[in-house]
Each structure stands twice: as structure tokens, then as C-alpha cells.
């Protein structure tokens, strides 16, 4: 009978007063001793519930057992059999609503820190140069993957491991998608992303940067004259949404995409060693309540803003951001103005943000998402003293994906229409997965979609399904 250890091992982390001034990782990570102490807590359930919560079905008790035994290479093998990017998942997955939520130990005590252990094993592997599995003989089939974010990287890695020739087309000058431009350095170090991308390259995947599909080549050309047998669309949801309120085009108003891209991809926090600038702001307002909003506010503080305030129209309970990231933001000094919605941004005579008018909200009846709908309280308008505003209210798929892709079905929300199980779109030989299908969601669900699509593409490439199956 396994011993019950009720409490988790403490994760060493940078103190808030220190970390709000640097871009280094907040959670420092386990060492072998801490990792084994945490691994001991796993009850090795005969019927593990945790695996059901994992979008990529990692054999969780399996890899944790290897850590317990000190067989690190074995742990890597089990982990990477299901997940090609574990160093990323271990850091950014919302485990608390996935594997850890179902943990049997978690029913009465603190769940096993599955994510932290995944990170530990993945980092151990990266430090040793990431072992490449033996690859099967080439099948001679070629797949074009559009986008090098989590969906594309996972799909490409799985297809490469099945022996197919894969080319990823990435529009930016660095691979990784949101992993590179969106999620900040202090949550997901870019060196880690590059190491994971390198692993995918080592599997034989050709990553072509600065290649925008829809302009440089089209999907129809890839399937036609370029002779690819299949195309996977993992172009994400990169189109920024704005509120449409007056003053939104004033100097000093950013979409979160721009704010984070300047900061993380272009390293504006190192200006002028890096050439891309960003407005630091005395008083920054970040509109939104998701992870992107938290990331933006925490970046603003690190860039040197005097104050960063989250402005969110609903309340604590409805905030979609990970609890851990909200706590981290609070500890770092981010101010929260909830049940508040902007109505107008004021600009001075030179076109700069000089303030923002907001209105207080109250929660009414639930809407289709099940969350209570926020309703403005008449007459409750007030002005906020801000000089930089970041709109982090969501993103939707970039419509460029439809250019030159004849017959690609589109939903009324602007996402690609596809079967969630297989990833098949309405266009034969074209699959899709991740945010381009679902709208902005998580890294891990994109990976799950990439995996499922890769399996279906493989069936197609082997002739088990044909274009006739596109009903």
C-alpha cells in the first residue's frame, strides 16, 4: 500500500519583489531530490484517472514511476512517447483543470504535481541534448504543415516519427508561434522553445521560416504543383480583436498581440541592444481577464511601468486566466479593477492616450457560455488616469488562411470548419487543428489536435482512407 504524503513539495520560485523586475522564469524548477520526493507521492493507481484528463494521453503514472526509480532515461522515453514538447507543457498547461484535477490523491489531499514533474523530466532531457528516437524507413509521402505553433509542431513531429517527409511553413522569422511571440520569457523561456523546436528539426522536419502561406505560396499550389500529399493548417488565432470604442487608435493603445510580440519575440525589454522599441507607460491599463491579459500586465511591470491594472468586465469567479497566473500577477503588484469596462479612450492634441473612461458593471443572467452576463450600471462612469492601454480581449483566426485555399469551409465565427476528432476540413487532403478551429484556447489542446490530425493524415497516406471519405 503506497504511503500517503498529503502535501506537495514546495516549488522554488523567485520572490515577487525580485521577479517583477526581471524576465527570468518565476518557477525555478525541481532538482533530483525535490523531484523524487514529489514522485513518491504518486499512488500508482491501478486505474489512473489522471491520464483521462491529458489531451495527449501521457502515461502519467508510468513516467512518474521511472522518476521514483531514478531511471531518468526511462522517464523521458515514456513521456516523449506521447508528448513531443514536454518542457513546454510542463510549464504552460493548466494541469489544475486537467490531469491534476482528476488525481486520486487530490480527492483528499493536494494532487500530485504532475506538471512540475513533467517539466523536471523534460528539462533533464534537454540538458543532455534531447535523445532522438529511431525513425522508421521513409514512406516517400510529403506533408506541408502551415504554422509552427504547438499544433503544427506536434503534428509535424508525430508524422516524422511515422516516417513521412514534413515541411513546416512559418510566417515569422522564428518558429514557435504563440510559444515564441505570445507567452512571455518569464513563463516560457525562449531558449526552451528553441530547444524543443530543434528537437522537431532533428526528427527530420524541414522548417521554412519567413514563409507566409496565402501569399508566398497558397495551399492549392502546395497540393498542386509542389506535390504535397497532405496539408495541415495550424495557423492559430492571431487576428487581434479591438473593442471598437472611440480613441482606440490613439498613440499608446496596443493589441496584446503587438505588446507581447514587441516584448517577447522582438525583445523590446532589451532596447536599445535590440532595435524594437515599446512604450513603457506610467500607468498601464490591460483590458481583459485571460492568460494573455495577465501576461501583458506582468510584462508591463517588468518593462518598467509605474503601475499595471487589469480592467475586466466580469468578476474573479469568471476570470478565465489560470489561477496560478492571477496569483503571480497579484503578488507582483498588478492591480485588479473588476466589474469594470472601458467605454472611451481619451487622446490629447498630439494623439496620445491621456485617459480612459470606464463604466462599472454588475452580473446579470448567464449567457451561452454559462457565465453570468455583465451589464453596465447606468450613471457609474468614471475616468482612469492611464497613458498606455493594452487590449487583451481575445483573438480570432487570421483570414489569410482562406486565401488560395479553394473550398475550405468557414464557420460563422471565422474559424476553419473541421471535424474535431480527425481534423479533416471540407477540403480534401487538408486537415486543421488548434486555435484556427476552436478560436483562442490552450497550447495543450492545440497539441492534442495536432496529434489526432497526424494520426488521420497517416491513415490517408497509407491508403486506409481516400478522398472519397471526404463527405
Amino acid at each position, binding site marked *: 500500500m503506497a504511503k500517503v504524503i498529503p502535501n506537495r513539495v514546495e516549488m522554488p520560485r523567485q520572490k515577487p519583489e525580485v521577479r517583477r523586475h526581471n524576465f527570468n522564469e518565476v518557477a525555478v524548477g525541481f532538482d533530483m531530490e525535490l523531484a523524487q520526493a514529489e514522485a513518491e507521492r504518486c499512488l500508482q493507481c491501478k486505474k489512473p484517472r489522471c491520464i483521462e484528463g491529458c489531451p495527449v494521453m501521457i502515461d502519467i503514472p508510468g513516467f512518474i514511476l521511472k522518476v521514483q526509480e531514478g531511471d531518468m532515461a526511462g522517464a523521458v522515453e515514456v513521456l516523449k512517447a506521447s508528448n513531443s514538447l514536454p518542457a513546454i507543457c510542463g510549464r504552460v498547461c493548466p494541469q489544475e483543470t486537467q490531469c491534476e484535477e482528476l488525481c486520486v490523491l487530490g480527492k483528499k489531499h493536494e494532487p500530485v504535481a504532475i506538471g512540475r514533474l513533467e517539466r523536471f523530466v523534460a528539462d533533464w532531457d534537454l540538458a543532455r541534448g534531447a535523445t532522438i528516437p529511431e525513425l522508421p524507413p521513409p514512406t516517400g509521402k510529403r506533408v506541408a504543415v502551415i504554422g509552427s505553433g504547438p499544433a503544427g509542431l506536434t503534428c509535424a513531429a508525430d508524422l516524422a516519427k511515422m516516417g513521412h517527409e514534413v515541411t513546416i511553413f512559418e510566417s515569422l522569422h522564428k518558429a514557435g508561434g504563440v510559444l515564441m511571440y505570445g507567452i512571455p520569457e518569464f513563463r516560457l523561456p525562449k531558449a526552451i522553445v528553441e530547444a524543443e523546436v530543434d528537437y522537431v528539426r532533428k526528427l527530420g522536419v524541414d522548417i521554412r521560416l519567413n*514563409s507566409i502561406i496565402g501569399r508566398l505560396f497558397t495551399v492549392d499550389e502546395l497540393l498542386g504543383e509542389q506535390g504535397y500529399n497532405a496539408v495541415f493548417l495550424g495557423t492559430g488565432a492571431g487576428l487581434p480583436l479591438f473593442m*471598437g470604442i472611440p480613441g482606440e*487608435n490613439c498613440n499608446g493603445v496596443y493589441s496584446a*498581440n503587438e505588446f507581447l510580440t514587441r516584448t517577447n519575440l522582438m525583445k523590446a525589454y532589451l532596447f*536599445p*541592444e535590440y*532595435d*524594437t522599441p515599446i*512604450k513603457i507607460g506610467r500607468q498601464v491599463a490591460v483590458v481583459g481577464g485571460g492568460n494573455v491579459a495577465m501576461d501583458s500586465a506582468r510584462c508591463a511591470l517588468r518593462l518598467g511601468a509605474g503601475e499595471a491594472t487589469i480592467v475586466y468586465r466580469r468578476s474573479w469567479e469568471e476570470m478565465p486566466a489560470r489561477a496560478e497566473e492571477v496569483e503571480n500577477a497579484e503578488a507582483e503588484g498588478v492591480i485588479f479593477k473588476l466589474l469594470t469596462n472601458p467605454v472611451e479612450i481619451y487622446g490629447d492634441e498630439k494623439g496620445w492616450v491621456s485617459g480612459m473612461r470606464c463604466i462599472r458593471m454588475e452580473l446579470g443572467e448567464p449567457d451561452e457560455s454559462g457565465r453570468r452576463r455583465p451589464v453596465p450600471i447606468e450613471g457609474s462612469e468614471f475616468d482612469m488616469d492611464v497613458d498606455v492601454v493594452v487590449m487583451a480581449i481575445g483573438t480570432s483566426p487570421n483570414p489569410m488562411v482562406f486565401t488560395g485555399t479553394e473550398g475550405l469551409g468557414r464557420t460563422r465565427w471565422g474559424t476553419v470548419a473541421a471535424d474535431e476528432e480527425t481534423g479533416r476540413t471540407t477540403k480534401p487532403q487538408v486537415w486543421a487543428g488548434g486555435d484556427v478551429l476552436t478560436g483562442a484556447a490552450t497550447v495543450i489542446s492545440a497539441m492534442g489536435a495536432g496529434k489526432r490530425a497526424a494520426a488521420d493524415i497517416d491513415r490517408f497516406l497509407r491508403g486506409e482512407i481516400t478522398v472519397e471519405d471526404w463527405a
Partner: protein
Amino acid sequence: MYEILAKEDLAPITKLLVIEAPDVARKVRAGQFVIIRVSEEGERIPLTIADYDRQAGNITIVFQEAGKTTTHLGTLGVGDRLASLTGPLGNPTEIEHYGTVVCVGGGVGIAPIYPIARDLKEAGNRIISIIGARNRELLFWEDRIRFVSDEVIVCTDDGSYGRKALVTEPLKEVLEERGHEIERVWAIGPAIMMKFCSLTTKPFGVKTIVSLNPIMVDGTGMCGCCRVEVDGKTRFACVHGPEFDGHLVDWDLLMARQRIYLDEEKRALERWLRTSDE
């Protein structure tokens, strides 16, 4: 890839680079642009296409040394490589048989207007070109423009070459004399020049196409940095443009947004000039 194959000084601060980019060269059309980085630490900047050779697999860009990035770019030579080049971006110019059209190129805007005039000529249009610069040193490609135009008016602000005038003067005259003949006008150059060209043509009711040049980061529609207001609606110049109806553009907003990083740009240029002397 992205190797510099040729370099030319067109004017004291205006340079031309021919860059190896076979896939871009095969696809690019007049009116489109590319986004480049000069180095690993470099920022991403847009440059409109000035010419291309689909067979040889190269593109030509013309730029003016205005800040750190363009100044740094100006120091590269044949054999050097750009850190990255992405394209073709933006919507190409709508080339059709319109009839008689006017193409106005102001300063460095002469470069992008050239391939547009060339394509319009090939489509059977009668081309009246007006090119202008502050002085004779800053003028370039008069020969190329003459080659693709039926009529050419050259002017300089100071009268050191051609007619002493801003481009808006001959533009107005052409419209006054032959407004009924002119189907469309293209005007490319600094924002203020495009603004005044649009104001000049508005009373004549001639559709005027401009190529907007806001600050950009990705150039693919994912950040919104390049947002402009056209006909009261917010548009992203990189995916909805870069060409728009000049009569509907909020010019003051465009020019205000072009000034967002003036302080940082000044710091960066000073630092570059200081450190490149050492």
C-alpha cells in the same frame, strides 16, 4: 538566402539593393512590400517593391537612410545577407485598362511608383508621370520612369532640376487641363505628400490611390500596429492595404501614429552613429 547581389547609391541618402529571394521574386507584384530585418537584434521594417526579376530570382528595394535600421542597412554590401526577408505582403495594385492615368512619385516614392506605372502601361493605359524631390541630388530613376510613361514632368522643390515646384502643382494643372480624360491617379511618397496630392485631386473627383506607410511589426495582420482609419473604419495597412483611396484616409491619424517612437528612434540612431565610429 537573402544575399545582397548588387548595391547602388541613387542619391546621398538613397540606396538600392538587389536581393536574392527566388520564391518572393516569382510571386511579387507591383504595390506589394516585403518586411526585412538587418540583423538578429534588428526590428522588422516594411519596404515596398521597386523591381523584381522572376527568372533570376531577385527583388529590388530602394530605401532612404532615415533612422538606425535603414542606416545600418545602408552599410551592407554585395555578399552580405539580411537576417530575414518576408513577402510578398499586402495586396498588389489593381492593374486594369483604365484609360489615361497619372502616376505621382515623391522622393523615395519614385521607386514603388515605377513598377506600378510599368504594369499600367503594359495593360494599355496612357501614363502621365510626375516625379519630384527636394533637390536634383535626391531625384533618381528619371530614365526608368520615362521608359514606361507617355508624358513625364520632373520637378524639384528648389528648382535645381526640372521645374521648380512641388508635385501637387503640375498635378493640379494636368487635372485642370485634362481632368475629364484622367481616370485614376496614383500618388506614393511621404505621408504629407500623399495627403496633399489627395486634397489636390479631390475637387476633380478623380479616384486617387495612395500607398500607406505606417509603422509595422509582423506585416501579416496579427498585431494591428499598422492600423489606419479609412472612411471612418479601422483597417490594417498590411492586409487591407497598403493601397487605399486617398480621399478617405485619416491623414492626421496616420502621421500621428508614425511619430509614436520618435524618441526611441532618435536614441537608437545616436547610439548607432556613436558605436559605429568606434
